[in-house]
């Protein structure tokens, strides 16, 4: 499928969403004072976007998001690969991982503020904690998926530890990792916003919190739409990366053939 056509279809999908969001309050299914129609929300978003402080807030959020995501991904990939590479480590860490994973980041806020009084530190801790598991689990499944014949080939040519990782394990795990990154990107963004919402460090979350506690419903939805649009943008970017680095993979190459 050509890129413009795909983009067109994507816009069509968003347009449908827009139509539904416009119709539901207009038809009185929901009180427009609680869920304003899409045009009103977008109008409000447009005015908000004219406000320079919104952009600084967005910048703040994106900064802790990007930093947290990067740290989480690096840590998770390194740890995942290490767990796979060292015999017995998988079994030794399994119980701890499963215990720690479901602990909600939100519950860690007191600890976060305690350890990193400074605001970005707390936000980062929460973002990293939440995003880390997403990538780690994907890495663990990915590295277990190496084709047995390919593995034997690598071994028979005596690929060293590093080459084995770089040329065999990493490419195999890459599709899993990219899914993990897409999952983690959203989770990291959510946590960045939530942490700001709760702790009150400056950013998009704080603005949402202010709008909520001021009863400014339309603005709340405008900001929600903004977070959604950021998500769409991030996904488009990851997809583009994927088309490049996974060109060899059946999921991508299949799209070209036939």
């Amino acid at each position, binding site marked *: 499928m050509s890129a413009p056509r795909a983009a067109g279809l994507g816009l069509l999908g968003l347009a449908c969403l827009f139509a539904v969001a416009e119709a539901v309050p207009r038809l009185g299914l929901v*009180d427009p*004072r*609680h869920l304003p129609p899409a045009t009103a929300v977008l109008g409000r978003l447009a005015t908000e976007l004219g406000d320079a402080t919104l952009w600084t807030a967005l910048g703040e959020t994106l900064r802790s998001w990007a930093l947290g995501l990067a740290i989480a991904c690096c840590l998770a990939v390194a740890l995942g690969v290490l767990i796979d590479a060292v015999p017995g480590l998988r079994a030794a860490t399994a119980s701890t991982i499963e215990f720690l994973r479901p602990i909600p980041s939100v519950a860690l*806020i*007191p600890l976060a*503020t*305690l350890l990193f*009084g*400074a*605001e970005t530190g707390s936000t980062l801790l929460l973002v990293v904690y939440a995003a880390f598991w997403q990538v780690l689990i994907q890495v663990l499944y990915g590295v277990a998926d190496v084709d047995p014949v390919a593995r034997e080939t690598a071994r028979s040519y005596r690929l060293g530890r590093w080459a084995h990782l770089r040329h065999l394990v990493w490419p195999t795990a890459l599709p899993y990792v990219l899914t993990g990154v897409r999952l983690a990107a959203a989770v990291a963004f959510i946590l960045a916003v939530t942490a700001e*919402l*709760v*702790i*009150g*460090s400056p950013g998009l979350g*704080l603005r949402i*919190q*202010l*709008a*909520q*506690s*001021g*009863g*400014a*419903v339309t*603005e*709340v939805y405008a900001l929600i739409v903004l977070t959604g649009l950021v998500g769409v943008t991030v996904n488009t970017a990851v997809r583009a990366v994927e088309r490049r680095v996974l060109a060899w993979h059946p999921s991508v190459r299949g799209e070209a053939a036939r």
Partner: protein
Amino acid sequence: NDGSGPGGDGRDSIEIGALSIVDTAPVHLARSLGFFAEQGIDAKITTVQGGAYSSSGVVSGQFDFGFSNTTTLLTAREQGLPLKAVANGVASTGRAGPGKDYSAVLVPKGSAIKSAKDLPGHKIAVNQLKNIGDTTIRAAVRRAGGDPEKLEFTEIPLPDMPAALAAGRVDAIWTVEPFQTQAIDQGAHEVCWPFAEATDDLTVAMYFTSEKLLREKPDLVKRFTAAVNQALAHARTHPEAVREELGKYTKIPPAVIRRIVLPKWPTEINRPSVQAIADFARKDGVLSRPADVGALLP
């Protein structure tokens, strides 16, 4: 952020953790009108989502001062958090009746609930369970001769209350300004004013700091208290200044700001009302021991 170190020119910079709501208008006024500056303080106000977060921030040293409601502070104190109140925060107007107080229980049009006495047996939304909302409602119901045991509470964040009430998800909501005005705009009306009905001149919330800061920088605390008190007095006498300030630090729509009922901002903490709150909380099981009110209050 230890924040409290004197700045380059001998000034102190402090960070205050507070909700960005109507109640905290004085501290914002104190900053914008230069009351803090007059006391040699550079103040930064950080928005938090709830009183509990400002407490933990003050304990961890992220904040130097916090703003929190009385029940939360009493609970924190009971659990051993070394907190000390340093100034009055906000108080009820002490008057019950439509449009008289800044917090009320509202019901939808045509509800059978007419007063506090009718509340038992109905589902009432509060923003936090085991906090000032439900304890004062219980007290008000008890005072009105109803059975507080029959009250049924559920938690809903304040911003979502008007919608929940309009959709009939709950029978009544306990809310504060500006949501009170918003709910009224959407057809609800007030039936009970728990702050005013529970006790006289209730001190709803206070500014506080940690025992550590109080010990180490008693002078800074004194200056903070002075600045806040000045602001409280100013707010009490200049409602228009308050409304103007609200337009700056909150996102409350201007049309609403003009109409909301403002709370009272006395400079003195009403000790008997704090004791009363402590007793209510004890009775309702929010506190497990009789509170040592004196340990919290200055």
